[in-house]
């Protein structure tokens, strides 16, 4: 029988509840006797907290309790930990300033948590928060990465007087310098990778409850990795016994990285639930999300590419300053290093690369992973350099790429990664065809007749998904494992519940993982449920980030299924009085090879739970298996994006008239879901390029783009209908041959858009987001240049 499930666009199991309003998000959870919390946040970017007076607020209607940093310190609640230790160029550990859950002594960014006000209703908590009197002494603030290390810059943390968290390097600097000195051509670009706010449409939320009956806690939280949240909170912050804390991340309304982390609000609500012996619920409003969710990107970079006369890449040199914000968020330190510099080889054979990254503290919200996390920044560097080099050397952008593509695998890059497989020419060739690049000059001429400027831009990205293996990551500073866990529970009747440590917050795991299990067990998908997001149900999990779910979480499930089949063979052999070696599992039945004797899957599962005729002397009853999977390597999805834009030089407006993405994600389980992931990623990438920019006022440190009125989220009429295609080179080191697809769009798109836009305008660079104002200005400047 063919495999009907793998590669089929099966409609999603989760959709019915979402379409009928039956989803269960954290803010939908109402616990008996729950109270409501509101956080008092610093209105200043940098200020000494001289005193906090809460007496008046405590008397306000409905107020139950108010806690400040002093209360947490008194209760020995620790600060939030950072999960990755970076060692600097001198072998010294990065600076790790304390990250208190409620500010102690100083507030370091607008939105920094100062106190929690808990009341019977949310409006009461909010009203009372207005009455908490905080006496601030304002201090000068620094918000921009480029200014953090300047002499006289305000100091964010005393332990880092130069605001430097680390200076880190990767690659052979001397070899790179030598290659540059002998190069026929050098292309240099300097740019900002703009700060973004992730903006999952569901704001962060927490609802924590404590039970005196058994001294246990339950925390409902909008989070991407409930086990990691529990581990960090119990072991590092609250010192609670891990088995006494249950973390449930129910339906979660998008994450994009921003819900990976352990946030102060989660800790404070959990701690406070015991203090008041009642549930404490908090849901961010959007304004709070803007100031307090971890942001993404925010790099200042100088990048150089050395080429020979034929356009072959000889070396790359990259210097980046990365803004960490005021505190180190959970994985902040590894984003601009381990997940950035290691990707600078891109799809090319550049023999030597050196990257130096300086991470700085500023008086802004913490910066951490946002869809792509380091890899979009790396792709932007590589693909803007390559396209610019092609223009400077008068080569076709496709040809310069082809000339430098990696063609044999496995391939060891000069920046630590070992690519297992890929076919970059195939994705580029397909993209050129779909995008009708051959017809572009005609379309450009037509646009010119209409007074419009057309441009074409490429981006051939590489991604590294499913960061692994744990021991290598550990040697690089990871303070956590990077495996995944899965459990397959076969019920007596042959129905199956699968528990996965991967979390789904839009990715459709209930469907995709169901397809994988249905395929492997040869039973209908209706007989399988996928359960995720609850430490009370799932054995363990590292959660969802870095496009790891199918490659790591999916493989853990496959391994557990394999154990089920292996045990089933033993049971079937006994039932059919055959040798175990003669049993094969095919189409949902255990068959004695070469005969018509067989036992259906449900017959074997029933025998396992009603073990009357069963080899009890050799085999335990029951049919339940779990597996942990720690991958041997990353997976390396890659693809080619081609963007075509049309600019109206009179207004500066730009429209994306054509966007083509051809991706190689290895084996694809559900093409419909994969395409959806690509569309969403592309839109976030286009958002970064054209509309989204998080902006802090340089003097006051106020977040200027603090709402959807100021921060321009892409809307339906900002993006085109996408043309997507796939090529398939299966991953060589996992049994499904899968690579991951969640971030690809956001990684590839910004460079493709900006390459197209600079092509249309005939300029070297334009800052992201390329708003109509910036584009119009660029048009005026080039007009003036032409006139002069």
């Amino acid at each position, binding site marked *: 029988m063919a495999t009907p499930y793998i590669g089929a666009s099966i409609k999603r199991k989760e959709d019915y509840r979402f*379409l009928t309003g039956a989803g269960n998000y954290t803010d939908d959870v109402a616990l008996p006797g729950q109270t409501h919390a509101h956080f008092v946040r610093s209105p200043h970017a940098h200020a000494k907290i001289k005193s906090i007076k809460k007496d008046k607020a405590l008397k306000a209607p409905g107020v139950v309790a108010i806690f400040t940093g002093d209360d947490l310190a008194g209760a020995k609640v620790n600060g939030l930990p950072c999960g990755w230790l970076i060692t600097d160029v001198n072998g010294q550990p990065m600076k790790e300033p304390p990250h208190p859950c409620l500010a102690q002594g100083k507030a370091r960014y607008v939105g920094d948590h100062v106190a929690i006000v808990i009341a019977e209703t949310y409006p009461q908590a909010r009203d009372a928060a207005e009455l908490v009197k905080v006496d601030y002494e304002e201090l000068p603030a620094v918000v921009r990465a480029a200014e953090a290390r300047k002499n006289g810059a305000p100091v964010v943390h005393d332990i880092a007087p130069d605001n430097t968290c680390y200076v880190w390097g990767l690659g052979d600097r001397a070899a790179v310098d030598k290659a540059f000195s002998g190069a026929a051509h050098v292309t240099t670009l300097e740019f900002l990778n703009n700060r973004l706010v992730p903006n999952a*449409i569901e704001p962060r939320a927490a609802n924590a409850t404590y039970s005196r009956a058994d001294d246990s806690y339950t925390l409902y939280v909008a989070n991407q990795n409930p086990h990691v949240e529990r581990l960090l909170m119990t072991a590092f912050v609250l010192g609670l016994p891990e088995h006494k804390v249950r973390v449930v991340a129910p339906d979660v*309304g998008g994450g994009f990285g921003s819900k990976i982390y352990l946030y102060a609000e989660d800790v404070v609500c959990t701690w406070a639930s015991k203090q008041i012996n009642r549930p404490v619920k908090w849901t961010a409003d959007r304004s709070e999300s803007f100031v307090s969710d971890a942001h993404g990107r925010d790099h200042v970079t100088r990048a150089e590419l050395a080429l020979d006369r034929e356009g072959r890449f000889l070396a790359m040199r990259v210097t980046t300053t990365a803004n960490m914000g005021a505190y180190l968020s959970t994985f902040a330190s590894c984003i601009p290093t381990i997940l950035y510099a290691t990707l600078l080889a891109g799809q090319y054979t550049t023999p030597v690369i050196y990257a130096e990254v300086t991470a700085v503290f500023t008086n802004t919200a913490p910066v951490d992973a946002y869809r792509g996390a380091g890899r979009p920044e790396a792709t932007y560097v590589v693909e803007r350099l390559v396209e610019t080099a092609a223009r400077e050397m008068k080569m076709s952008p496709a040809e310069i790429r082809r000339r430098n593509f990696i063609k044999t695998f496995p391939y060891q890059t000069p920046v630590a990664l070992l690519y297992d497989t890929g076919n970059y020419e195939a994705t580029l060739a397909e993209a050129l065809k779909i995008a009708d690049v051959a017809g572009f000059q005609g379309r450009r001429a037509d646009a010119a007749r209409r007074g419009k400027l057309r441009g074409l831009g490429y981006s051939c990205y590489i991604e590294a998904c499913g960061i692994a293996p744990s021991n290598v990551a550990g040697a690089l500073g990871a303070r956590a494992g990077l495996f995944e866990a899965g459990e397959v529970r076969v019920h007596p009747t042959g129905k199956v519940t699968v528990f996965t440590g991967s979390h789904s917050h*839009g990715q459709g795991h209930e469907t995709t993982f169901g397809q994988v299990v249905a395929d492997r067990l040869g039973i209908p998908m209706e007989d399988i449920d996928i359960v995720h997001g609850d430490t009370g149900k799932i054995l363990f999990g590292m959660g969802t980030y870095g496009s790891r779910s199918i490659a790591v979480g999916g493989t853990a499930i496959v391994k557990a299924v394999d154990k089920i089949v292996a045990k089933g063979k033993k049971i079937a052999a006994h039932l059919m009085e055959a040798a175990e070696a003669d049993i094969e599992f095919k189409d949902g039945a255990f068959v004695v090879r070469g005969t018509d004797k067989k036992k259906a899957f449900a017959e074997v599962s029933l025998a396992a739970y009603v073990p009357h005729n069963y080899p009890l002397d050799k085999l335990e009853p029951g049919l339940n298996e779990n597996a942990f999977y720690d991958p041997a390597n990353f997976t390396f999805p890659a693809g080619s994006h081609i963007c075509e834009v049309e600019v109206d030089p009179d207004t500066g407006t730009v429209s994306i008239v054509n966007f083509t993405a051809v991706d190689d994600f290895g084996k694809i389980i559900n093409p419909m879901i994969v395409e959806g992931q690509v569309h969403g990623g592309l839109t976030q990438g286009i958002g970064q390029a054209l509309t989204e920019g998080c902006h802090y006022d340089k003097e006051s440190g106020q977040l200027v783009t603090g709402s*959807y009125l100021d921060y321009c989220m892409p809307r339906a009429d900002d*993006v085109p209908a996408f043309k997507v295609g796939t090529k398939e080179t299966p991953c060589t080191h996992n049994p499904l041959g899968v690579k991951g697809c969640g971030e690809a769009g956001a990684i590839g798109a910004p460079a493709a858009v900006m390459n197209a836009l600079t092509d249309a305008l005939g300029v070297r660079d334009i800052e992201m987001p390329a708003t109509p104002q910036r584009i119009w200005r660029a048009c005026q400047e080039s007009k003036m240049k032409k006139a002069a």
Partner: protein
Amino acid sequence: MTVKVSLTVNGKPASAEVEERTLLVNFIRDSLRLTGTHVGCDTAQCGACTIHMNGRAVKSCNMLAMQAEGADLVTIEGIAKADGTLHPMQEAFRQHHGLQCGFCTPGMVMSAIDLVKNFPDPSEELIREQLDGNLCRCTGYHNIVKAIKAASQTMRS
């Protein structure tokens, strides 16, 4: 000060005592416990709270509960048939993968039904323009647009 608000929701009478400043969306979510209507922003931009009031799509975060006194409301919970069969718009979203995390989805569906009511045969361009009041961070809108186009055909036939 509290005030009693009485209205019709999904064909049934409903009432609750709320503070005067209570927003309609909080009345729906907290007082009536109809949690399918979501709150994604505080500036009436995201559209996750969209419901139908007296036959028109409105953002329920942008008005007080009191202002809906006596009104006829339909929320996402009232869109499918009583036997659970999905409305053609809901079915089209499912068929065309017009949702991922599901958070913006109720508002999207409510807006989309209104859109097709006003424009029974909308072009792709018109759908994109009309969706201006609803944000989705997951889908890139591609499949939402496809779903609405498809549903408009089903709803006409």
